[in-house]
């Protein structure tokens, strides 16, 4: 008997009797006989001790970031997760709950979402934030769909900077497959922001940039929103939320919708998921937003409480006319982000961002001093930077790995014109000793 299944055979018998059937098979008599009760070929059941042993062995065949120095980022980041975060999301009153459709017994989830929404607004400089999307890529795709909706489907052109994460751009293209929307801007992967501005026209629904961009650089955003708005389009900015501990939020430079990957905010790197799609916008667009929203109200005794609100946007009410099909989101990841931001607070998040900035600049400077290596340009950057290498990046990475160092992202994978370049990421998790070890290793692997 599995420990997950409480029925005894005696109870099963009593229940069958109450139903008025002789056997459990009778409950499946409505299934066509030719497909009923197929054999399942699965490994034999295990005890807890056995599965844990097996999983531990399997997991130890992976090179994890507790045992390797990591200089790889590119959309998934190795940031510190304070102990309190794990304890908060480990409360099973949170993680074994469903979507808070019954507010009287879901105030815990509802209030934490309301707090998360408030903190995302604070970070991004936006006025409304929703309860989450699957990840940064899908949040960005949904933002583009929303921009088209706001134009009442009159504008069907979406301009996306090639310096937006390659997988976000791919996801955007998948999301628009069944629509009339034309995604453009990144045909030439070397295109700069000024070139993108020239593409704005009366058919443009939005322009999408990432800041800091995929290469870690802070974009030249002054005047960008004016140009976009002059064309009657919306400005969508994808952010690294850690960078907003230090740098101007998109709300200050005229963004209409802000999206981002929230994994950095207290969520494990976990081989790519689950992550957290951040989504925020100006108040005037709130009824066109996808996703769940929590609002404040009072109960019959006048006590403050929280409920899901503006639900007529959502699929369970509006069905095919909904603003999105999203139902399950990333609530627990948003809870982690809320706890992370509350733990870091006003000064902590800034300090994390500063540590990233200083360490990345130290690493960049040291690497640039090595013969054969050079920084590709001199734009200001946050925690990632592009280095041109004297040997193929894949080869360098293989050799770094032997010294227990996970090197940078090989840019040739997504940007053929940067085949000799590597994108390094340095966070507060990298010590000076690790950075020095990287620099030494790079020196050794090159002639």
């Amino acid at each position: 008997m599995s420990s997950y299944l409480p029925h005894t055979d005696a109870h099963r018998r009593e229940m069958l009797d109450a139903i008025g059937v002789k056997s459990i098979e009778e409950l499946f008599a409505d299934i066509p006989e030719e497909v009923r009760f197929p054999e399942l070929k699965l490994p034999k059941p295990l005890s807890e001790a056995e599965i844990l042993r097996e999983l531990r062995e399997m997991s130890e065949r992976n090179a994890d970031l507790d045992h390797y120095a990591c200089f790889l980022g590119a959309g998934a980041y190795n940031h510190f997760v304070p102990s309190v975060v794990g304890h908060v999301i480990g409360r099973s009153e949170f993680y074994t709950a469903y979507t808070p459709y019954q507010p009287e017994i879901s105030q815990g989830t509802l209030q934490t979402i309301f707090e998360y929404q408030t903190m995302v607004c604070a970070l991004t400089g936006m006025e409304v934030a929703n309860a989450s999307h699957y990840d940064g890529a899908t949040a960005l795709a949904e933002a583009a769909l929303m921009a088209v909706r706001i134009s009442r489907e009159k504008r069907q052109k979406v301009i996306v900077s090639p310096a937006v994460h390659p997988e976000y751009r791919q996801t955007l293209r998948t999301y628009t497959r069944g629509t009339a929307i034309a995604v453009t801007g990144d045909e030439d992967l070397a295109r700069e922001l000024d070139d993108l501005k020239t593409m704005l026209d009366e058919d443009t629904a939005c322009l999408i940039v990432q800041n800091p961009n995929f290469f870690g650089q802070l974009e030249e955003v002054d005047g960008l929103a004016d140009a976009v708005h002059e064309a009657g389009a919306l400005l969508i900015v994808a952010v690294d939320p850690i960078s907003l501990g230090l740098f101007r939020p998109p709300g200050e430079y005229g963004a209409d919708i802000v999206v981002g990957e929230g994994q950095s905010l207290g969520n494990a790197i976990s081989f790519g998921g689950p992550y957290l799609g951040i989504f925020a916008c100006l108040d005037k667009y709130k009824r066109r937003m996808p996703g769940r929203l929590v609002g404040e109200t009072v109960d019959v005794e006048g006590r403050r409480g929280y409920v899901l609100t503006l639900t007529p946007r959502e699929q369970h009410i509006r069905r095919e006319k909904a603003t999105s099909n999203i139902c399950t989101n990333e609530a627990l990841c948003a809870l982690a982000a809320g706890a992370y931001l509350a733990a870091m607070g006003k000064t902590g998040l800034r300090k994390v961002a500063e540590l990233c900035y200083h360490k990345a600049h130290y690493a960049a400077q040291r690497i640039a001093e090595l013969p054969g290596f050079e920084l590709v340009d001199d734009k200001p950057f946050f925690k990632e930077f592009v280095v041109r290498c004297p040997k193929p990046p894949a080869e360098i990475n293989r050799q770094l790995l032997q010294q227990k160092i996970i090197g940078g992202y090989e840019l040739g994978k997504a940007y053929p014109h940067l085949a000799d370049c590597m994108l390094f990421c340095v966070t507060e998790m990298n010590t000076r000793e690790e950075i020095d070890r990287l620099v030494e290793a790079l020196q050794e692997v090159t002639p």
Partner: protein
Amino acid sequence: MTEPLVFELSSPGRVGVNLPECDVPEAELPKELLRDDLPLPEVSEVDLVRHYIHLSQLNWGVDVGFYPLGSCTMKYNPKVNEEAAKLPGFSRIHPYQDEETVQGALQLMYELQEFLKEISGFVGVSLQPAAGAHGEFAGILMMRAYHEERGDLKRTKVLIPDSAHGTNPASSAMSGYQVVEIKSDERGNVDLEELKAHCDETVVGLMLTNPSTLGLFEEHVLEVAEIIHDCGGLMFCDGANMNSLLGIAKPCEMGCDVMMFNLHKTFSTPHGGGGPGGGPVGASERLVKYLPGPIVVKEGDKYHLRMPEKSIGRVKSFYGNFAVCVKAYTYIRMLGAEGLRQVSEDAVLAANYILAKLKGVYPLPYDRICKHECVFSGRGIAEDIHTMDIVKRLMDYGFHPPTVYFPLIVPEAIMIEPTETESKERLDAFIEAMVQIAKEAKEQPDLLHEAPHTTPVRRLDEVRAARHPVLRWMPK
């Protein structure tokens, strides 16, 4: 019982975590790019912990008690799943690491793909989608890719039974298709005559939830699939209710071309207060090459990430909700084939037990053997009593309400999914509470109108929340 907002606990100068000193020379910051203020709260660690503990105590979860939310499969979430996902070799690996350094993770994903194929009969599975609706969207895009590749461009209609989840029509609309609603017949099956009337060369396919949201198995499933395939359409199956089919029937053998799984429902990964979930898609021979990717393939004894031949592309970044996959994998390995079949048998047994016991107490619109859930109506129990009153009163008895007012084709619906993890004693207590409430509805209706009485807050003013939206905290 309420808890202040975290912002109201804030005092300037407090910190919730200490960070290391900078151990490298400081670089110059670009002053013109810096922000002036960052209005985040400032709280100490102890206050932070208490804040969240207090909030958790205002919440209901499966670990607190019975949660018979129909169509959501709120089963017990085994603790070992959580331990498994936290192993550093799983939780501390980067998605762009060299494949050589993540063979353990790729093996787990590969084997989970294989398990899901075996359970469903499909020939290929992609773990990429992050949730059920996300998997639906991927599935419809795969159907689109299939028709487009055949040059069959006049297909614009997706047929959806009137009992379907709202995500089905929403996913179809996002994929650029029109939705045509198909009526259910008096037994809760798809009305075959109406289905045939809509089947022509403009049909993309049918989205069938089986068992349906009425908790009923589609008795003509093979015929339905034949009708759809005969007009050149495809069968999308919504796997939300897969909890009743493990080892009972394989969707692919019943004519499904594509289906999404809900790892957070059937495979207990858990729900997380609304997410994260996992929405892998499985595909038949016809559609397998269009699966979203990358997926994991095995060559020799090595595992690799590959894009399927004619993939619709990626539907998110990276490879799916990996930690959720670890939990689903653990769950399947713990139960094995017999255990999974026992899960479905016990889930169906429990639902039929509740159905048998409450029949005659509450109106039962479709009186036949059900699968994982049973659907009653709250209409006509007593004058001026609504389903909402009945289920709010359930909270006073210590139960989470069932799903209500859905499916839409049952007036005042009460949709009860007990799952396999509730003991007979617990089911009996729930049944007893439902019987008591039906009695109270006649004798003391105000008890129901004013319910709940014992919860941290009482009924909340949702109209006010929507009319004057307050969506974030603002300092006074």
